[in-house]
């Protein structure tokens, strides 16, 4: 048991714990007015449940996951189909599924499932992926859930799938010049992609390029978020003192735009600490990938890290006005049980991989 505890990655755990604590503080600040104080308590409750779930998951060797990968993939596809057919619409997209009293976002869980399934899929095949054209199978494997998510439509999650896939491909030796080629093709096909986007997604992109285009419509979030962050200045206005956050100028301030609350109330110093904590998580994730006992572990760790990185960059970039607005939450901080639960399980997975590690450090 002592060895078990010693082999846990305590730096990762402390970083995640710190972010969750920050999350609770920010969620309280964003919701305490107007009788929404229960939101912080609910989030804390899900944290507790998530941590317990994570602890339980550590008792099972992660390698067992490879065996359930195929049924998991099938389950994921069915789940996404289910959302498409029976989904509960919110904000113009079908993202919620109701299960008794609980409504959850299947796409959040699918991010985790995707990592496991793709890691298992690539695990046996990675040595046969020598040429660019060899990648057609894993691409197809990813494309099915990708398109289903796009149909919801949930551009954010679809892009997360892309980030997971790319990070794992890179671990399989996907050449940098192929990546450059893909980038080029992507750019050229942009007009075609534009055609398939929903009008609100197009508006988001238009407004991303110029938020002043619609300061009270689609550009409102970004403008207000930038004002919130900027007005925090070096040390912030203080907890519960952010005028943008407290007076409702900042919408979605407990979910996707929670980083703006941090920026406003805790200033540049607060932003620095949060970004540093995420960097620690990325560092630990890659370190665990490096030390993993087998390829399945490496692929899992890289996929998880890639996903976290993508979330953090896109979310913070969005609140700071340098990324388009896509509905991607800030891991461990944003309010939301589905996202929190799956993120904690993925951290558990990282810890699990680390328990079997060989000693090797950067």
């Amino acid at each position: 048991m002592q060895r078990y505890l010693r082999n846990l990655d305590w730096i990762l755990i402390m970083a995640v714990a710190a972010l969750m604590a920050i999350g609770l503080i920010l969620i309280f600040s964003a919701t305490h007015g107007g009788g929404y104080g229960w939101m912080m308590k609910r989030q804390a409750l899900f944290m507790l449940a998530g941590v317990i779930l994570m602890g339980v998951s550590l008792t099972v060797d992660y390698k067992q996951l490879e065996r359930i990968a195929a049924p998991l993939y099938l389950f994921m596809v069915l789940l996404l189909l289910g959302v498409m057919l029976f989904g509960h619409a919110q904000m113009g997209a079908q993202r919620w599924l109701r299960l008794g009293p609980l409504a959850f976002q299947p796409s959040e869980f699918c991010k985790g499932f995707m990592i496991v399934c793709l890691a298992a899929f690539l695990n046996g095949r990675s040595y046969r992926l020598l040429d660019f054209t060899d990648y057609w199978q894993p691409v197809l494997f990813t494309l099915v859930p990708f398109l289903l998510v796009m149909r919801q439509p949930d551009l954010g999650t679809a892009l997360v799938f892309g980030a997971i896939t790319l990070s794992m491909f890179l671990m399989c030796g996907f050449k940098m010049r192929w990546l450059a080629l893909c980038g080029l093709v992507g750019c050229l096909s942009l007009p075609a992609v534009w055609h398939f986007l929903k009008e609100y997604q197009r508006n988001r992109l238009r407004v991303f390029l110029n938020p002043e285009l619609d300061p009270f419509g689609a550009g409102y979030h970004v403008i207000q978020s930038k004002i919130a962050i900027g007005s925090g200045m070096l040390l912030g206005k203080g907890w519960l003192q952010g005028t943008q956050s407290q007076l409702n100028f900042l919408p979605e301030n407990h979910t996707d735009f929670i980083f703006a609350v941090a920026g406003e109330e805790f200033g540049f110093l607060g932003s620095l600490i949060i970004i540093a904590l995420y960097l620690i998580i990325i560092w630990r994730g890659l370190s665990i990938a490096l030390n993993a006992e087998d390829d399945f572990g490496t692929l899992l760790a890289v996929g998880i890290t890639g996903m976290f990185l993508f979330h953090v960059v896109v979310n913070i970039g969005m609140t700071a006005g340098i990324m388009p607005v896509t509905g991607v939450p800030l891991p461990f901080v944003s309010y939301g049980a589905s996202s929190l639960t799956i993120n904690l399980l993925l951290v558990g997975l990282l810890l699990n991989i680390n328990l079997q590690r060989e000693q090797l450090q950067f």
Partner: protein
Amino acid sequence: MLNKTYANRLKNMLLVSTGIFVILLARMAYLQIYKGVYYDRQADGNRLRSTRIVAARGLVYDRHGKVLVNNFAGYTLTLQPHRQYTEAMLQTLGEILNVKPEMIKARLKLAADSYEPIKIKSNLNTDEITSIEERRRELNGVAVELEPERRYLFNELAVHVLGYTGEVSEYDITQGKYKGLPQGSIVGKAGLEKTYDNYLRGTDGKRNEEVDASGRVVQQLGSVAPKSGKDLALTLDLGLQQAMEKAVDEQLTALQTSGVAPYAKACAVVALDPRSGAIRAMVSRPGFNPNLFVRGISTKDWQAINQNPFDPMTDKAISGEYPAGSTFKVVTGSAALDLHKVTPDELIFDSGHHWIIPMGNAGGEALGWINFQTAFAASDNVYFYEMGRRVGIENLDAYAAKYGFGRITGIDLPGEAAGLIPSPAAKQKVFGEEWGLGDTFNAAIGQGLTLVTPLQLAQMLSVVAENGVLHQPYLVEKVLNEDGTVLAVPQRAEPKNVGISPETLTLIRKGLLGVTQAGGTAAYFSNLGVPIAGKTGTAENPHGQDHGLFIAYAPADNPKLVVAAVVEQGSYGATAAGPIVYKVLEYMLQEKD
């Protein structure tokens, strides 16, 4: 093992991640440190709202303390400065308020440098307020504020005296009377509202508030209370004013419907206390309802006023210029008697026309041998032609000037006219013609080029009534503080003796008394029961029917009220203007002073 083969890739991933995070951090530094102050101000602009608390204008009382003008609570729509409003929002607002979005845009542009809320529309009605409240979410940054609204309690009553208020014009802010006032301020536009605007307006207060995203006030951050304007106590007598308005309207209707004077639609009447110059009542017709202007006059109402050929906006009592007609015989008579060009007993033969130039009486009548008293009471022209000839035009003009003609009286109203006293030099200058005896004849009976205002006529008669002392006519007795104490008494000219001998004035008064007695041109005034001094006048009007004039004071032995009335195109003074004066005096005599 992949992690052995691609260990470098993992290291590079960490490097790239670190690089990306440094970029994020740099962005934070840019927003929070480099542009921090800028965004801080933007956040303040979001949450802070400064509202002007409009000071209530001062009240206006009549001489007995009855309220003529007050205020009640109206609602005003304002937009915040330094805030962006979308096209759609302006469209919605325009629809609700029934104004053009371009007009709102123009206002926003005008107020670009201001920190005051921008007033879009005052005195909103219930429908407009409801529509705005219903769409609060959409109409972010739109505020509905309580603001005092001017109310003229008696509508048209004394409108030309009281004037009306309105939003200050762009011209007035930049270079006119109201220079430097904030846009949207309510100022006096006419009448006493304009003359005494400095007292009436008061000082606006200010309220700083913190608001949330939907514009609701979260907390008050301090305020400066508004200071109400000062009140005016007028010389007007509400009862007398009402009686005068009623008399005017009845008389005009009677003249129009009887067929005697179908175009008798304009009229001006002044009543003042000769002992002080205090105006007790003043009417000009046609009039208008000043409350229409308070609410921002509609195009239809404005057209009705603007296209009326009888010019409702003009105060004819102070700026209407008319030939004096026979009322001017007071001046001619004064000059002749005072300069001893005639004795009261000298008899002059009226053969129907003058013996030098065959100019005669209006009706062609010939009264034979007559003295001053008879000639004045019967308003004989031939007699007064002769007086004019004996006095000479220079002396006639000098006496006209003594009575205050040819210059403004200095009443505390804007837009007073000076009238015209014709002189040989002026005729030469304007028409390039020599002054002839005929011109003097015309001047002697107040025709020709002579122009006077009804107020000047009243002033002339009050000099007669006061035995040669001229009191400047005025309307505001006192400026009062809110608690009723006197803040100021408006300055006016000292009473002065105009330099006409008491003997002369006694004879004039006797002549005036004769007018209202048997044999006079307005004998029906004897029905009033007290002796009345009066004079009729019929002024030739080259554009239509003659103007009818009547001036009088009562009681003749102890003058308390002078009345001068002009009915445009009303024909004979005795029948057109006389009945109005009769009713005014009737009201005055039954009232206890």
